[in-house]
């Protein structure tokens, strides 16, 4: 088992390097001088020169990349062009808020998707299934910010149940969590339903049924457990999905998280910050995938052998 884990981690290293290369290379897509872009329009020449020197932008691309990488590895991700505060500080102060929001949204998403998916699969082609599937399809098709604004108008302004935006009490969590959790649940529910349906067709389930076991027992004991395996894999993409949702939703709900920081940074062309956030999130995704793989190996020992 340990050997498997170590091997997975070693395999992740080139992946992280590749990601960093791509993220760094993005800056060079710009039509103009990347240093000018990093420094901002109003920056005096001395600021531009100092960035050029400090980050080696006068050197060839690969040298620049390694200069940057070695700084990043030592925790120096540069400074925001706009506030001139260290990027690491800006990120650190936002991270807890994004984590809290994502935690609740994930919980809510799981709480909606699993029961609904299982029921839909069990009562296939009844009105329950149709209603659940309709819910999922609508949820997947709605632009997130649209849903967010509708929820604010209905629940914050008309009904006055929750605050419109900001943080503070538990009530502040309700609307952003609902928006984020709902749209994620939609996709996940379909996944649960499909993979359960596939398992239900397998021979061992048929056998179990033939043995005369009650439907509920068949469903929970035999089918669900096996259906979990593909679902766990899907959970690997969960983090990536959440991140995308947060970018838009945090801005609308004035939530002080990473997504909003990224939005502001993009609008202000604060590219050291953009670079750092994307890099960080991508590395987190790698870590999440790694975790899922290990989990997968725990559930299904066959994986370790391949």
């Amino acid at each position, binding site marked *: 088992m340990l050997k498997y884990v170590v091997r997975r981690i070693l395999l992740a290293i080139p*992946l992280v390097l590749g*990601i960093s290369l791509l993220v760094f290379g993005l800056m060079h897509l710009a039509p103009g001088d990347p240093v000018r872009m990093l420094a901002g329009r109003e920056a005096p020449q001395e600021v531009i020169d100092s960035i050029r020197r400090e980050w080696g932008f006068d050197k060839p691309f690969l040298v620049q990349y390694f200069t940057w990488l070695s700084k990043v590895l030592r925790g120096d991700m540069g400074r925001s062009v706009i506030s001139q505060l260290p990027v690491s500080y800006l990120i650190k102060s936002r991270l807890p808020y994004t984590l809290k929001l994502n935690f609740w949204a994930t919980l809510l998403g799981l709480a909606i998707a699993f029961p609904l998916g299982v029921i839909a699969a069990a009562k296939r082609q009844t009105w329950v299934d149709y209603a659940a599937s309709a819910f999922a399809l609508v949820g*997947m098709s709605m*632009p997130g910010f649209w849903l967010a604004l509708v929820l604010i108008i209905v629940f914050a302004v008309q009904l006055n149940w929750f605050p419109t935006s900001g943080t503070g009490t538990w009530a502040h969590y309700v609307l952003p969590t609902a928006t984020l959790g709902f749209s994620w649940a939609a996709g996940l529910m379909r996944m649960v339903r499909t993979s359960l349906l596939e398992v239900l067709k397998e021979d061992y389930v048929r056998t179990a049924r033939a043995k005369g076991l009650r439907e509920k027992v068949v469903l929970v004991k035999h089918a669900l457990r096996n259906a979990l395996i593909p679902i766990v894999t899907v959970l690997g993409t969960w983090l990536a999905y959440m991140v995308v949702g947060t970018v838009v939703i945090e801005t609308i709900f004035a939530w002080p998280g990473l997504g909003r920081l*990224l939005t502001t940074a993009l*609008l202000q062309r604060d590219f050291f910050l953009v670079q750092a956030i*994307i890099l960080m999130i*991508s590395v987190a995704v790698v870590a999440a995938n790694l975790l899922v793989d290990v989990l997968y190996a725990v559930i299904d020992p066959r994986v370790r052998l391949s």
Partner: protein
Amino acid sequence: MPSVLQRLFQHKLATVGAIVLLLLVFAALFAPWLAPNNPEDVHPEASLRGPSRQFPLGQDPSGRCILSRMLYGARASLSVGFLAGVISLGVGIIMGSLAGYFGGWVDLLIMRVAEVFMTIPQFLLVIAAVAIVGPSFTSVLVIIGLSSWTGYARVLRGEILSIKQKPFVEAARAYGSSSWRILLRHVLPNCLSPLIVMVTLNVASVILLESSLSFLGFGIQEPQASWGSILSQGRAYFQSAPHVATFPGIAIMLAVLAFNLLGDGLRDALDPKLVEGE
């Protein structure tokens, strides 16, 4: 093929999806004839006015006809979806065939690059790239297209690898068939169904992605309109003039829903394994 179509049309929801899509495509193609007004005509004195006889879906902040703008916007939204899908499909087919055909280090390299693209959340990659290059119709669709090729590449590579082992390919080789011929004759038809399903679902996600880009100001730019850009413009008036954001929002939902339904239907129709149980 007729059996596939038959199966597709037995699938009621997919039929509905296909019809909705046909209508939307029709609206986009014939926008100049269908639009009641010139989409660029401004009426500042009538800004944000609700639906009326002359302006069936009301007017935007500049008093332009929302229905007309949406009809023209359908062109942008749908063509970003289709073209980005086509670009990803093209890049995916090339990368996948290279990887599958050559194998070895080429395969390793391509699949590693694909993994990098799959790990970085696509939305982040796209907004950053669009912000850097500058948003426009072309940059949006090219960047989205270039960022979502990995799924196609994986399907194609998998298919090639499995087909390579099959005796008929060896036989074809032995008879001197060129590799390209084998690819065209045997590989592509075999993975056509998953590819078609993927493109359909991909178009849906691109339309949503474009609306999120518009929300951040990095989508299709004026004077061109997309549903996403009209919707995002309307959000400032969500309370005072809800019609501006409501109609494009519904259009996006309908289109995405239709693509999803069609995609589901196609998957079922093209994949007999699944249908069996229905």
